[in-house]
């Protein structure tokens, strides 16, 4: 059973490396997910704002993200982020050789893509909160900011939950793309293992199984939260 040996832990096998890669995939997905949610919240607010400039910037952002391949956006952000930062540093007069940390660059570029998808999900959820809620909040004298954070956000969360779960599954799978900009997450580890041992099918199938397990567990977790949220909703 040569392949069992290859998938064992320790010196002979690659499982420990693969698990490390999987952990990095999860970490980078989490960072990109959070970055995406922050961007998405801004995007959603901008899309619903009265300002024409904000609206058109936000809709331009989502349109581009929706129609340009994610890997292309990731490449563009990855290179421009490094260039922009070195430019900023040279502006301050420091002449430091600058190299953006691979993890940060990957997380930012993945997060920008994710932000485009998050914008739509969050916008949908905000719109779904009844209009009367805003009116009531403003009527009792809350400021616009308070209305948004104390009234709209808590009510939109259960509505956004299925969408947020989908976004997480998307970013988890999309994290495989940062292997193409040289970040050693699960897919790149597997690729190296496959190349070193020449057992391509075995290792790529193993990566697939790890992804299946990760997305399966995530769906269970999100399902749990959805059920919880719907109960909490009903009790009130």
């Amino acid at each position, binding site marked *: 059973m040569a392949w069992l040996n290859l998938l064992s832990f320790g010196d002979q096998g690659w499982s420990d490396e693969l698990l490390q890669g999987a952990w990095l995939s999860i970490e980078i997905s989490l960072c990109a997910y959070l970055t995406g949610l922050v961007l998405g919240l801004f995007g959603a607010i901008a899309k619903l704002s009265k300002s024409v400039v904000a609206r058109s910037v936000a809709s331009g952002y989502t349109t581009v993200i929706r129609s340009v391949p994610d*890997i292309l956006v990731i490449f563009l952000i990855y290179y421009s982020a490094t260039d922009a930062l070195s430019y900023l540093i040279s502006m301050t007069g420091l002449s430091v050789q600058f190299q953006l940390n691979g993890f940060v660059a990957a997380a930012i570029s993945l997060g920008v893509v994710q932000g485009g998808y998050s914008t739509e999900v969050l916008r949908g959820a905000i719109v779904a909160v009844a209009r009367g809620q805003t009116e009531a909040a403003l009527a009792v004298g809350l400021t616009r900011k308070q209305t948004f954070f104390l009234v709209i956000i808590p009510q939109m969360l259960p509505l956004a939950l299925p969408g947020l779960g989908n976004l997480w599954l998307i970013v988890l799978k999309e994290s495989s793309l940062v292997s193409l900009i040289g970040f050693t997450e699960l897919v790149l580890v597997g690729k190296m293992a496959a190349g070193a041992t020449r057992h391509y*099918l075995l290792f790529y199938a193993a990566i697939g199984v790890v992804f299946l397990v990760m997305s399966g567990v995530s769906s269970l977790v999100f399902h749990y939260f959805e059920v919880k949220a719907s109960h909490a909703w009903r009790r009130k």
Partner: protein
Amino acid sequence: MSDFGSYLSGELLTGLQTTIVLFIASAITGNLLALPVALGRISQRAWIRYPVMAFMLAFRGTPLLVQLYIFYFGVGQVLATVPTIRYSPFWPLFRSANGYAYVVLSLNTAAYCAEIWRGAILGLSTGQTEAGRSLGLSKYRITRSILLPQAFRLALPAIGGQNILLLKGTALTAAITVFETMAAANLVRAQTFRTYEPLLAAALAYFVLASVITSGFKVMETRLASRY
């Protein structure tokens, strides 16, 4: 036009042809395949339903990039060990990355679109089926003449979105050495050390393609809506 400009546009146009052919081929195969897969997914017979469920789970639960790797490197390697395939006249077909890209993109689209179809069919009220049954229509007839036409209208916007994702998916086939737009941009990038021009030009090309596909589906939607 400058040297660089003509070089860039020449390579991109070559790549764009592959992108378009790959997209159209996989879109047709994938969307057609989605229907039987969706019907299999909601079939009453367990021996049809469970394999179809496994197929959909496998293709929806793993990244497209990994699927491309599994087929091109993994299955390709296994096929090379089978002498009847290795020495058959069809071997070049099994060796080309384009073939694997086409197969994977089609299957991937089929799995995702099948889920959309399933949602649309289940979203129809049960009264539709019951009405069909009380009219004495056969099961096949109910599915073909009552359920599918209505489900198609419900599913069309989501299917349009899925086809945009398919277009974006074709960019990943560059990773398995298919020479399409993304690969052309990467080639120019490596040859000229200019980062932004090739990538932005490729992005523009994809943007235009995506707009064409989106407006195509819009036309289909309005046509379909005006029929009822």
